[in-house]
């Protein structure tokens, strides 16, 4: 691999890391409250409101059913409004976040729904309000599962970020397509795939370790 190629490789690696981290952080901050809202407004939830629940579910499903590559293009006006441009790494973070948020919201919803209802009842019986239930029961009890879901979301984002090359976002996936695939540079392709495997394994390992530390169930 030439020094120029190596520099390009390192730059692409960091682009992937930044895109994944930034859109991961946004999807966590937006997806967790959305997941909580889905559980809270659902049947038997702590703030049951089936109309709001249906509307939220429809929005989440709508975004999740659009293929990412189409979402990437369709969101160009929104991206331009937020970032000022529709090209480059920062521009790619907008559609990545918008795609990952409903994805993580559903993951969080499943995690939160699995919290034993008896625990919610116990805290209600103590005189706790809804906020107490969220803070002391739902989020802490679901935390290991919420972390596991976030790990999956991050790994999915690494894959999705490869497509962001279509709007000039860079990143390892983009590098593999342009050099490895289109210019038949097999060495680049192999290097990219090897690094991606390492990154995914590292994230999964870190996530699993964290889950094991957080989980106190027998």
């Amino acid at each position: 691999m030439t020094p120029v190629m190596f520099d390009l490789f390192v730059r692409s690696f960091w682009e992937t890391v930044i895109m994944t981290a930034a859109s991961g952080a946004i999807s966590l901050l937006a997806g967790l409250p959305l997941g909580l809202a889905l559980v809270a407004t659902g049947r038997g939830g702590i703030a049951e409101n089936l109309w709001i629940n249906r509307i939220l579910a429809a929005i989440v499903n709508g975004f999740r059913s659009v293929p990412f590559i189409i979402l990437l293009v369709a969101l160009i006006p929104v991206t331009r409004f937020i970032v000022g441009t529709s090209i480059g790494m920062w521009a790619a973070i907008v559609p990545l976040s918008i795609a990952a948020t409903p994805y993580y919201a559903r993951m969080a919803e499943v995690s939160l729904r699995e919290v034993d209802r008896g625990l919610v009842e116990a805290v209600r019986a103590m005189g706790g309000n809804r906020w107490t239930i969220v803070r002391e029961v739902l989020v802490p009890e679901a935390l290991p599962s919420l972390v596991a879901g976030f790990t999956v979301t991050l790994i999915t984002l690494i894959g999705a970020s490869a497509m962001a090359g279509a709007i000039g976002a860079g990143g390892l996936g983009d590098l593999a397509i342009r050099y490895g695939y289109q210019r038949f540079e097999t060495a680049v392709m192999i290097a990219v795939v090897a690094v991606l495997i390492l990154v995914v394994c590292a994230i999964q390992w870190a996530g699993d370790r964290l889950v094991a530390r957080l989980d106190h169930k027998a």
Partner: protein
Amino acid sequence: MTLQQTPAGHPADAESGREPVVRLSGVRRHFGQTPAIDGVSLTVRKGEILGLIGRSGAGKSTLIRCLNGLERPDSGSIQIEGREITKLSEEELQPVRRRIGMIFQHFNLLSRKTVEENIALPLKIAGWTKEKRLARAAELIDLVGLSGKARSYPSALSGGQKQRVGIARALAASPALLLSDEATSALDPETTASILELLKDINKRLGVTILLITHEMEVIRTIADRVAVIDAGRIVEEGPVWSVFANPHTETTRNMLSGIRPNLPPHVAARLVGEPSGEAILGVDLSGPDAGNLLAGLSAELPDGFRLVHGGVDHIQQQSVARFFIGIPPAADALARAIAYLQRHGAKVEVLGHDPRHV
């Protein structure tokens, strides 16, 4: 002395003067077409342990959940410490719930909080400072016998220890009433006994009023002062435990007691015949101070003796409750004399039949 009389000095006497902690009247709750609670009126007085017993589906869980507003009745009145709670909003109910501790069949401890954090949670909700709530949690950990476990997580505890945490948590905010929802149903018999012992001790030492629901008469017998039997959403029988055990008035109660009171063994019952041939088998019930001496007196009365088939004297709330089955030999007037003697001493006597095997 008859069964209906309450001996002087019994706790049941003193209770009638005490103020009620809970007063239910005409409480109804329907799920769709089926009534879960169908007009229940019940009073729990300060300092007593009232056991509410019923089969699963009898409505007891729904009823206990109405007391802290986890479940709302369709109609009727529920007063907690004199305050009507049926009309309160969810926010207004929260301070009322802080006056009521609750323990659960499956403990409902938070898995990611330590023992002390679990116990301190009601205090956190009530707005205590961290220092004060940990001090209070430490007191309660000692009270329930879990010293050294403050920093353990529930997953490291046995079922009995988990329920002890549940009890400590329920008592943390010094409630006026403790609700126990099948608290021992998931525990083995030995652990059940130790948990019931703890509840009784708490009732005595702290004077906490306890309403417990269960489907096990053994639990009622061990711990309760009074019992209410619920069936199909209605209270069918209510009274001091010893008196209900000695003289159950309804079929439901008799069925629930069948595992715990002596019954005529089935192989004996099977060979009984109606016409007088062989030994007459009598069922005898008596409670009160005479219960223990009854058989000795009877053998003096009958020169030919009699045969004890089954049963004996039980002690419930310091009351002697006798229930036995005896065989009277077919001699001239033995049966008539036996019945006369037993009835003279206040016993309830029933001729169940004759056993041709014993002549």
